[in-house]
């Protein structure tokens, strides 16, 4: 993916291809939103309609909520950087029936805030008393580095059995190639 003004278009096409090869239903959509007077910023979300939920329909009938804010970094030749990102696997398009979620914010945040990158899993621990009283597992922030879109795809396909549109060896090779590349591009 090239940097500069074209980077947003490349990013949109890359995300499109990533989900086309893998877990997206053919009726899915992604959209890029920009401010006409702020050319260095963009928001990529799933879904057809800006007033609707930012969700991608998956091949298993469930949904992936996807919101990513990116900017072009002038100090690095216009490379694309991820500012915030959240992806959430959920049972329905518009309710709270989520399974897992990954959140990331590049911004410096208060010391009491959760880690910049973290995972949530909605569920119940088998071991009683391991969590603080009245602390549901779903509210626990499991720290991680920036959770990538490629990681979301692999998790959905390989661990949760979401059907993929391309054969495993095809999409796995594409994901492996691009994950290393996108880490260099987005995480610097």
């Amino acid at each position: 993916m090239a940097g500069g003004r074209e980077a947003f278009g490349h990013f949109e096409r890359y995300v499109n291809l990533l989900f086309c090869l893998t877990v997206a239903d053919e009726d899915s959509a992604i959209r890029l939103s920009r401010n006409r007077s702020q050319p260095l910023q963009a928001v990529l979300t799933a879904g057809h309609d800006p007033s609707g939920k930012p969700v991608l329909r998956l091949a298993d009938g469930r949904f992936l909520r996807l919101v990513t804010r990116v900017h072009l970094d002038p100090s690095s030749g216009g490379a694309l950087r991820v500012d915030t990102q959240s992806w959430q696997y959920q049972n329905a398009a518009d309710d709270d029936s989520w399974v897992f979620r990954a959140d990331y914010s590049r911004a410096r945040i208060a010391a009491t805030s959760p880690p910049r990158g973290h995972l949530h899993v909605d569920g119940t621990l088998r071991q009683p008393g391991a969590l603080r009283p009245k602390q549901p597992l779903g509210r626990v922030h499991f720290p991680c580095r920036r959770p990538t879109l490629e990681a979301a795809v692999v998790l959905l396909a390989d661990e949760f059995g979401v059907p993929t549109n391309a054969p495993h060896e095809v999409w796995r090779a594409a994901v492996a190639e691009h994950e290393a590349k996108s880490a260099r591009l987005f995480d610097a």
Partner: protein
Amino acid sequence: MLSTKTYTYTRDEIVELVRFKSLEQGHDPADVFRNFAAGDLRHFSRLVEAYAYCGLLPEDDPVFTS
């Protein structure tokens, strides 16, 4: 390929989008603008879309201080 579309908004349209996404989640848009400007992304998972659109506005936009 999936359906893709690029939307190019004015400043006022983005402010309205943030208001809509905040109210949809039961939050006061004024709080969302103020918290975003302070770097306090509380209720991040619920307000992630509203915060993302806040990021399309310049840091010195009046909506962050009004």
